[in-house]
């Protein structure tokens, strides 16, 4: 096996290996477990760095394992996968550090970190999948490895959330599978290609192609939490905060959104998607989701629930950008994959810190907390402002590109959606920020714990600060080479330019 | 109608008669008897149709098959009878419960 085939495998295997090893560690082996966790995460990041360097220098990374005659498991590094791989492996490292701090002293940590690593393995697999069946494989693995994380607390509520999650995702997986097989029985190939691989069937199999598109998007829409398939996401917030971060920012919803990107760009191709007339309904669905999620978020007092509905709304920006069909909007959608990740993970880290340090779970309990935990709340503020779309933060870049892209594609209605959504975002974040910074603090917090020198333990504090800085950086440095924006533009070029 | 066919048709009759009794009767001993009647029917068909050769010597292969079949049937019946006794000892009835135990 040569290096170009080995590297994608190795990137997937680092977390798989450390995950499997962790299962066999007893609870007491904290050092060994932490070493494996961080070692795996850092090593993976290094390998991803090598891969970026390689892709830049014209290496073609591709690993094949025959699955069935004519059908391979295919891991391949292309422009889109690099975007998602960098996001997931980078945020994984941050989340791992956070989770180590968060779960310190709690039971079943070996099980937790084992599945945690499997979850990231699956996500990286989703990112690197070079064809639809490989995508399906890792997509299902993601379902299976997140379930134990959601029910980790083993309470009745957690188990109910886990059950809901499974009902949604397994059904979604089944639809995705049917769509995939159906597509394969028509095309005889499933390999992702710029501009898709169904063009030859547009005249003969029009109805089938539309049905397959609906099946695929429905299957992926469950994880991407498109309305009305979003029901599992707010429930799943009972999971520990690092898991929420993983679900909302790194892995699950992203896998769904990324899958829709793949289907539109690399399975059907934008041309076929437009010709089949499915892009309009998809954009409409995304728009409905954006507004609906924001409206629901407005009325949640539980902080994590509010953030969850915010995710429902924000992830659909990605879908919207793709469905508008136009190079600029697509760039906006793709870049939001990264932007939403860093912003939302910051917010969830902060919510976790509030819960862990002060026992705060509700928005109504957050009065004046900015003075008690300035660093955390500063990070939170950056994340929230980014979500609203305040320049020069990450969210602004996204919304700018989406808006300009929509105008460019002649779909003015999208601008109204964006404006409405931004107003709603402001509606559910600004009151929180106001309460945090300007309202007087209560005499005592619900359940305060002392962590000595800092406002909370360093492992809990460093991750949100880092991701908040990232939120700032990707917005400020959007036009720098290798920024997510530039990368997204590069991908769009491949998709749209002749 | 030749004697061969008469025997064979009788065998078919025995087979269906046994099947009827097997379904209708609840007592296990009757069920076992019914299965043996069915078996006799099958053996009768097997042997009788061997007599369709032109000469006086019948086809002996079915005869050997029937001997094998009989030994198998005897073995199964022996096991079944022993089981009936144990079922009766364990449940007090030589019948199968209406619904499978759950």
């Amino acid at each position: 096996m040569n290096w170009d085939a080995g590297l994608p495998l190795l990137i997937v295997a680092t977390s798989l290996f450390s995950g499997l090893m962790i299962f066999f560690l007893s609870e007491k082996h904290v050092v060994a477990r932490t070493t494996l966790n961080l070692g795996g995460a850092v090593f993976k990041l290094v390998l991803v760095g090598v891969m970026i360097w390689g892709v830049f220098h014209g290496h073609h990374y591709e690993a094949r394992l025959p699955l069935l005659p004519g059908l391979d498991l295919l891991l391949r590094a292309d422009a889109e996968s690099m975007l998602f791989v960098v996001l997931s492996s980078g945020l994984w490292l941050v989340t791992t550090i956070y989770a180590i701090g968060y779960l310190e002293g709690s039971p079943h940590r070996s099980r937790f970190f084992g599945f945690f690593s499997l979850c990231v393995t699956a996500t990286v697999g989703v990112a690197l999948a070079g064809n639809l069946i490989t995508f399906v494989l890792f997509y299902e693995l993601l379902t299976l490895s997140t379930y134990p994380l959601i029910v980790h607390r083993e309470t009745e509520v957690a188990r109910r959330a886990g059950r809901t999650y499974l009902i949604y995702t397994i059904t979604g997986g089944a639809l995705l599978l049917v769509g995939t097989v159906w597509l394969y029985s028509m095309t005889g190939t499933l390999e992702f290609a710029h501009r898709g691989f169904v063009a030859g069937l547009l005249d003969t199999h029009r109805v089938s192609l539309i049905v397959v598109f609906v099946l695929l998007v429905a299957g992926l829409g469950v994880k991407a939490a498109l309305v009305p398939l979003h029901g599992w996401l707010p429930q799943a917030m009972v999971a520990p905060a690092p898991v929420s971060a993983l679900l909302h920012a790194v892995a699950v919803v992203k896998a769904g959104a990324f899958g829709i990107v793949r289907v539109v760009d690399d399975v059907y191709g934008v041309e076929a998607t437009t010709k089949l007339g499915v892009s309009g309904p998809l954009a409409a669905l995304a728009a409905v989701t954006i507004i609906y999620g924001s409206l629901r978020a407005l009325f949640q007092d539980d902080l994590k629930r509010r953030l969850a509905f915010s995710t429902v709304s924000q992830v659909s920006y990605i879908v919207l950008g793709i469905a508008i069909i136009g190079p600029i909007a697509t760039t906006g959608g793709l870049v939001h994959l990264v932007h939403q990740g860093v912003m939302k993970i910051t917010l969830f880290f902060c919510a976790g810190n509030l819960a862990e340090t002060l026992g705060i779970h509700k928005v109504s309990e957050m009065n004046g907390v900015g003075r008690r935990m300035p660093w955390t709340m500063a990070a939170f503020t950056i994340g929230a402002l980014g979500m609203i779309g305040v320049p020069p933060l990450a969210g602004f870049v996204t919304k700018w590109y989406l808006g300009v892209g929509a105008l460019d594609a002649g779909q003015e209605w999208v601008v109204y959606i964006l404006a409405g959504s931004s107003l709603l975002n402001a509606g559910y974040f600004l009151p929180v920020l106001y309460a945090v910074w300007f309202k007087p603090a209560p005499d005592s917090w619900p359940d305060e714990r002392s962590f000595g020198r800092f406002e909370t333990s360093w492992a809990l504090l460093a991750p949100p600060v880092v991701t908040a800085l990232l939120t700032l950086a990707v917005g400020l440095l959007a036009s720098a080479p290798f920024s997510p924006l530039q990368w997204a533009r590069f991908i769009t070029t491949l998709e749209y330019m002749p | 109608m030749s004697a061969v066919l008469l025997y064979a048709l009788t065998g078919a009759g025995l087979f269906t008669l046994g099947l009827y009794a097997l379904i209708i009767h609840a007592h296990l001993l009757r069920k076992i008897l019914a299965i043996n009647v069915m078996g006799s029917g099958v053996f009768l068909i097997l042997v009788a149709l061997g007599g369709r050769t032109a000469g006086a010597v019948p086809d002996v292969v079915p005869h050997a098959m029937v001997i094998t079949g009989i030994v198998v049937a005897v073995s199964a019946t022996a096991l079944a009878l022993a089981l009936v006794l144990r079922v009766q000892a364990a449940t007090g009835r030589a019948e199968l419960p209406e619904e499978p135990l759950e």
Partner: protein
Amino acid sequence: MQQIPWEVMLILLPLAGAMACFLWPRRTLLFGLISALGVGGCVAGLGWRLLEQGAQRYAVGGWGAPLGIDLYADGLSLLMLIITALVGLGVSIYSIGYFERRQAILFWPLWLLLWSALNALFLSADIFNLYVTLELLGLAAVALVALAGGANALTAAMRYLLVNMLASLCYLLGVALLYHNFGSVDIAILAQRVEASPAVWAAMGLMSAGLLLKSALFPLHFWLPPAHASAPAPVSALLSALVVKASFYILLRLWLEIFPQTGAAPGQLLGVLGAAAVLWGGIQALRQTRLKLLIAYSTVAQLGYLFLAFPLGSSFAWKGSLYLLLSHALAKAAMFMAAGNILRFCGHDRIADLDRVAQRLPVTMIAFSVAGVSIVGLPPSGGFIGKWMLLEAALRAGQWWWVIPLILGGLLAAAYIFKVIGYAFTQAGVLRQTNKVPMSMEWAALALALAALLLGLVALWPLSLMEIGLPFGGSEVDAIQRAEQS
């Protein structure tokens, strides 16, 4: 030096092992394990020969069909033998820890006789000889169920025996009709001579009915759940993994060789019954409150999938069905073993009271979950490959409606598997009196479960074995695929 007749060895070795176990009850373990390993070696030997020389025919006694009995080994038989050897080895290791001495001295000879019967069945090319092997298999299976003792097991064994006897007689009557119509009981000769006639129709009906009864196809499955649930755990594993598959194998052979020109209607009927089995078995499994009954009903459902290939009839569909059969054998054996461990550990198998098994019996729980992945048909597992092939075959044949049972069955399976897993993740703190479970029992279950998973990653290898002797006819689908790609 002439060739070693591995076929004969495969039949005689476990037979000799059984006799040795019977004669020296104190040495059952030794003889049992030697036989298990020996059979593994013989399967490897036969496989090697088949790979080198193609399908093999062996005339017992040197007579040859139609006068004598032939043994025949092609890819289909080989895969059945391999899976039997794998599951058999797992069950053998598992039962070391499971049985106490008093039961062990009866279990080992019976199990080895059952193994011998299975091997003989998969190798036979003669429909009357198949009848004898079927009876040997059936009686050994009944005896093994009864080994558990107690009213439940005894009544289940009784029902099972009656069903077996009835089914065998139906089959034998079919054999009689075929023999007297065409003058042979050799499958290959019959395949050449057979032509549509009332006797062939009657024979097909009778033999199929008998074999369907033994394969527990809905609605003829009524005997299976009590028998498989009340047997000792290793026996449940054998019954669900292998014994029901044996009669399915014969049915498959008959449909492929002797009754191929029977038209579409019977195939469609079997497909409908299979779909009904998938749904009914899944719903029933979901309703169960006891773990072993849940797994037994899951077998009813999973057997239904196998029959979905009959209406499709393409070689790709047959292979998919066979692939599901193989992975189900491994996964279900692992699952019953895991259930046996839980039963031993907790002293009961009520699903609602599986307090904290996930923490206290982790290896078993992992085995159960991994096997569950294959049962549900999630990737990467053998179950997924099999389902994929059936889905693809159905869509290619334009019979898209078979997709519905395939998908709904998977969802139902996910529901009942995760019902069990969900109960294992509880905080119930009640520590009841628990029994120790030997390591060998836990790891045997895990090994088989992992094998089912592995089957999802090495599909090309079993699929290429299926080509030996072309038991499923030419690979027309592959040809189409190649044509499309070029």
